[in-house]
């Protein structure tokens, strides 16, 4: 997988929980342009272990001088977001993947409705830049818990004053998803990124109102949860290793020197799917990719977020 080496040019505390990092190419060249909704995966060395976390790109896609990402300090961090908040400062050098887009705008849409919850605002920042450049018809509906948690609201007001709507929960702001979707003209696409409850609600409401599936877009990255350690056997590589509690299975496979495929590292894209050969316990599926039937069958696993509660799991890699 091709990587880009970047240097941290700036760090800003945006809200009590969110820091924004500005990244420039370490060799001073231009970075690739990208499409709104793209993310990168940042590799970080946390006490000798390589963590790789996905973050949405927030800068304007046309700006090839710098990328911006926002990192929310996670309460149940395995170390990645804490590391970014405490150990990554101006001048630090990081390896990132080329931008990947799993949350692209449909350019044929007659209208775009963007629904963000909390830090779910991040992928919309670059999408808004694209929509403005294309002079597209769009609305942003942005909900967050309290005024102090409303990241980037001033910037959004300055660029999308007519299109942006804010809902501050502790000030009584309520986003009525059904009312919002019910009044949209034919040809509208809806995009949602935020907490699971919000995503589920938007998807269910849109389907209930008869929206075609191809007009409904969501991005939901799962963070790989910690769990119990277990033994992992890689059949093709003929390697046996232990997945420790705080590393994902994918990170443990990479640490063993095996080149495993991946794109989103959040259980969304399906790229890292592996075949399960045997398993003497229970697979803990945490992805949004496999169907319920596939999860129940236990023949496939997404090692970026899922793990097992077992003694030995054998995979075909």
């Amino acid at each position, binding site marked *: *997988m091709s990587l880009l080496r970047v240097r941290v040019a700036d760090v800003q505390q945006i809200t009590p929980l969110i820091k924004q990092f500005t990244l420039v190419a370490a060799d001073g060249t231009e970075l690739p342009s*990208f*499409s709104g909704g*793209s993310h990168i995966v940042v590799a970080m060395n946390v006490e000798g272990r390589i963590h790789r976390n996905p973050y949405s790109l927030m800068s304007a896609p046309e700006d090839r001088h710098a990328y911006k990402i926002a990192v929310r300090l996670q309460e149940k961090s395995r170390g990645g977001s804490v590391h970014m908040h405490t150990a990554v400062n101006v001048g630090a050098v990081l390896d990132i993947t*080329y*931008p*990947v887009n799993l949350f*692209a705008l449909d*350019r044929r849409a007659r209208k775009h409705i963007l629904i963000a919850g909390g830090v779910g605002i991040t992928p919309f920042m670059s999408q808004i830049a694209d929509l403005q450049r294309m002079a597209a018809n769009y609305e942003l509906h942005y909900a967050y818990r309290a005024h102090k948690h409303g990241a980037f609201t001033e910037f959004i007001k300055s660029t999308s004053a007519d299109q942006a709507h804010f809902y501050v929960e502790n000030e009584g702001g309520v986003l009525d998803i059904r009312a919002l979707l019910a009044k949209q003209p034919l040809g509208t696409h809806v995009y949602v990124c935020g907490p699971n409850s919000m995503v589920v609600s938007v998807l269910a409401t849109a389907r209930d109102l008869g929206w075609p599936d191809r007009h409904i877009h969501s991005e939901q990255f799962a963070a790989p949860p910690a769990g119990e350690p277990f033994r992992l056997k890689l059949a093709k590589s003929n390697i046996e290793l232990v997945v420790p509690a705080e590393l994902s299975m994918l990170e443990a496979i990479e640490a063993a020197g095996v080149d495993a495929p991946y794109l989103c590292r959040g259980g969304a894209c399906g790229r890292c799917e592996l075949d399960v050969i045997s398993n003497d316990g229970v697979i803990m599926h945490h992805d949004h990719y496999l169907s319920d039937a596939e999860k129940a069958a236990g023949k496939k696993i997404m090692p970026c977020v899922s793990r097992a509660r077992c003694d030995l799991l054998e995979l075909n890699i």
Partner: protein
Amino acid sequence: MTAAFKQQTFRDDYTYQNSPQAIKRFPFPFGEDQYMYSVNIEPHTKGATGSVNEFAFDIDEHYLSECEDKRKTLALDPGRYQALPHMMDAQWDFLELTMESLAADYPKLFSLVKNGKHWEWENKPLGIKTAFIFGDATTLHMQPFEFMGRQVQGDFVLLDQREGTLFADAGFITSQADWSLAFNVGMAWHEWHGPVPQVTKLGVMDRALKYLMSLQLGSPVRRLNWTMTINPRLDTSPENYPLWGGDRNKVTPDNVGELVHLRVELQGLFRLPRSNGILFSIRCYLISMDELSTYTRWAKRFHRVLKSLHPDLVEYKGLTKFRQMTIDWLSRFDDGAPLESGTHPE
């Protein structure tokens, strides 16, 4: 390199031919005696110096002749260039990728000077020099995809990724092996691959689609495909079938070496940055049986491939009328001794 560009034709009097250097670098696709359809995708990384894989887009001795053939085909049938309205970002992606690649890889032939969004492009072989504003289509005298499509050898399709598949929503197609842009534009992946035999049941197209959907920016891939063409004709389109279809009946045991050509497509796939689309490039290389048999190893190999080719593929590739004559013609080179694996000429 400018001095080495040839002025030859791919139609009417068919003066096209390959120099010894062009023959030696021909992308011969058969590493084994038996051909099996496969996806055979590999990273499109920098290949050996002088090889067709050295650069993202190969410019060779046929550059001027091929650009002129494109111009003629397009003048006769403007429908060979089509782009749906939502593909404008992909058009600029194509322009950027081709201009940046050509200027970096062939600095004596092409130059690109950027000053913010103000770009200056010079194509010395074609005598084009123009200044324009990147992203502003009103500053070019034709659409960006057409503008650069005319200046790079090969055919190009821009794919839009949505709804879990890929749509062929723009194309510049003047050297196709019997498929039609007018027919395929706007089609989804499984629709335009519908006619390929032997692959649906293998699940090949499902796997290839999944692979391409996750194709990454900065990591293009390539593969080779092949068929055969009578006369060195680039435009073997269904629209112009009356102009070339009958040539299959002109093959005789005496003119196989001159008339029958192996046609190899170097196909590239590039993720595009702004549009999140994919560029599918199809570069066509033609070599006559006379030229191919300069290297006995290739003649032997191709003889065995043709002999053992699955009947469905013979039919699909349109080889029925002249396959046996070509096998007979090539048999003089084949002593039956085993050939080691590999596509190398000697």
